[in-house]
């Protein structure tokens, strides 16, 4: 599974380092897009919790076509 998450605003290199499994680009309409392979459902929910722990607001999240 591949997922993309859209985060409000820009993120620092510290935050990028906290998501070594995701790649970071600027979102198409502002914000920051993080995307990459998600192993399973548990990993997905774990990522959401990590966003919450870092105080990041998730604006969008979607499954990418393979």
């Amino acid at each position, binding site marked *: 599974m591949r997922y993309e998450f859209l985060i409000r605003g*820009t993120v*620092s290199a510290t*935050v*990028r*380092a906290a998501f070594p499994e995701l790649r970071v680009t600027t979102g198409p309409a*502002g914000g920051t897009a993080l995307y990459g392979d998600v192993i399973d459902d548990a990993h997905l929910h774990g990522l959401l*919790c990590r966003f*919450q722990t870092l*105080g990041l607001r998730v604006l969008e999240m979607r499954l990418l076509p393979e």
Partner: protein
Amino acid sequence: MAGSEHPGPTRARVSAGRLGVPRTNRAALVRPPLVAHLDQGLAGPEVAALILACAPPGYGKTTLLAQWASRVEAPDRLLAWFTVDPGDDSVFRFWSGVLAALERAGGSRTEPFRRLSPPQVAGDVDFLADLVEGLAATAAVLVLDDLHEITEPEVLHDLNRLVRQQPPGTTLVLASRLDPPLLELPRARLAGRVHELRAEALAFERADVDTLCAELSAEQVDRVWEATEGWPALVRLVGMALAAEGEDGVGQVPTDRNLADYLFQEAFARHEDRVQQALLSTSVPDAVTIELAAELSGDPYIGHLLDSVAEQSGLVSRLPDGNGDIRWSYHPMLRAYLRGELRRRDLAAEHKAQRTAARWCVAAGLDAEAVRHAVAAADPGLLDEVLRETGPALLVSGEASLLLQLLRRADVPTLRRTPWSSALRAAALLDLGQVHEAFVEHVRDPPVHAHAGASPDADLAALRVATWLELRRRAVPELPPTLPDDRPALEHRLHSPDVRLLLLARRGASELWSGERVAAERSLRGAVELARARGRSGALVDALSALAALHASRADFTAATEDAEAALRIGEHHGWTASSRMAAAHLLLGWGAYQALDDHTARAHVAEVLVLLATTADPGVELSATALNALLAGDGRASAADDLFEALAGHSAPQAAAGVFAQCALAGVRLSLAGHRHRWAQEITDGMRARLGACAELALAEAMSETAAGRSESARARVRSVTSGSVHAWVPTTVLEAHLLGSVQALRAAEDYAAVEHLRAALDIADESRMWRPLVDSEAAVHDVLVGNQGRWGAHEELVATVLAHAGREPTSAVMLTLREVELLAELPSLNTVEDIAAALHVSRNTVKTHLRGIYRKLGVSSRREAVAAARRAGLL
């Protein structure tokens, strides 16, 4: 007895730090409006109140609830606090924690909770009813903090039930980062009994920021408040930033930055470099003691630094340890940022910190933590070193699944397969009953070669030997035929006592399997002693179960029951009731109860084993459980008996230990004959001959078939060979049964004296080992002899009385018809005359009449019509 080791109901251990109201930080802000808001949520006498504090990390849920809770406690109200952690995500552990919290809450009022045992599986209605009653009696306020750690549906299901049944006068406080997925919650909301406290309410007011940042100008406070939107942890971060510099405060927040991210950078950058390094390096473990912090940071004054950060920011908490030591723990948000920053700045420094933490955890005996850090350090050499120290301990403590979970993280290209990770993975898989996977791992594992000059790792070799022994016992067909390393001196060169323990337990089980009882007893007793001394419960349960099996194979059911009970108690204490580890103990208790004529208990244990069988792959346990189940069903035509015949004919039976196979096959033959399935009996006997060769069990099986077929001379000769001890008996039960059959044969031949002699010998064996079952199950004629000679059994009088009482109350239903009689019985429902039948069977008219009389006598009837009816009732037609 092990009973004295664990007094009271069995519970999982819960560290004291997670029970009771946590101490709040001195820097914490007291927020009276919110405390008052919570007070409104308290239950009145008619209301079952539910307070839900639900917000992302950093909103001060715990701090607020702790401040409130310390005020709420009153003589007529019990206040209990339980901080949930990821390890509580099982029914047994969760309820253990809740009960421990309630008990700790205080004094004599907690009496109702002291008696309760946490359930092992979800949906224990009785337990919940008792718990609800206790909560009602104490007007309890139960706080469950960090409830988001619970994700297991079973646990949530139970919690949901508690919410549904919550009694009036009690208050349930749930604090979580996520809305708890409880179906009962919306209903409780509709009923108006939920009092919610969400992020919006928990955010700081402007006045709170004023209080907290008293040293700032009004303008600066404005900026802080705007920037943070009142998110408490962020205000703290600002506070940290300001405290570090003390001057101009935070600048204008750029609008395109994430607040937390931005504030962390601000706050962090303002600290001097020494402090930054210290904070970064100490963020690696979840909590640090003073020694670990000093080692990680290389700063002897780190304690002082952490204390001052704790005081200024409120983002570091001091946790009292059980032993009075202090541990510091970063707020999850701060920790997440520190770890990210450490990784970004210097991956090598992070790995170094992980290595230090791993080594420190090894020395501190924190096995799982050590492995976790070693994996994160991404250093194969270190991982192997750490696994060597901690892996065997985890294994013998019954933490194989945890070990596998940890090793799975190490299964990445950067950490290539190391000898220890491979060997431990195989051993752990085997411990969980995944024999095939374990075998694949075992053969993939490269053999340990002795390097020139370097001494080979004896521990690793011993671990591989232990695995090989167990794989052989589980009869893996493609296993290499020789021991991976069979140097006899191996045992004396072992470094780790846990490897020694594992080797002893596995070797004992293996010796038992191959019938070396004396050696097995020595190994198993050694294993039990070592496991007790080191508190290694997994190996202790295994060794005790194996020892119980050893006793049972010697027909000493008293000792077997004692050891199996001890194993079961320890297993319950650790919440392993649903683990395949417990199958053997249940099975042996089942056999013990069966031999002691307690069918009810025996059935309960067999039912447990049959459930656990789904996950175990021990062919001996499987076969033996099937046999016991068939014997308990009692009817040779029932489906339980079919299962046994199938198991005996199936591929797993030959893998069971010879003794187990002999015993089960004999039970199969007896049941076949009782069910008049003579061909089955023949097939099983053939199987015994092929697997066991000449032995007492085979002789007895043949004697039983011959007796059923009326070939009494040959049958008596075979019985004599068993009772005289001229053939080897795998299990003592066989000799007892041979004496009973001998007694029956003697009675048929009208040799009453010989019958009594056989019975006396049988009673001797039965009395010694509490093996009463065969006596009760024997024929009515034998019981007649027992009755007829009452007063002449000497020391066995009591046993005889017991046997007769049981035999009278539960008459055996099986009617023993001979082969000829069964053939004849099939003809009876037809309209054929005796002459017709005689012609059809190619026998004389008189022979048919003799057999008919035999059938009438055995069925207790006097006419052909009654015989047909009785035979149909008994399932013979």
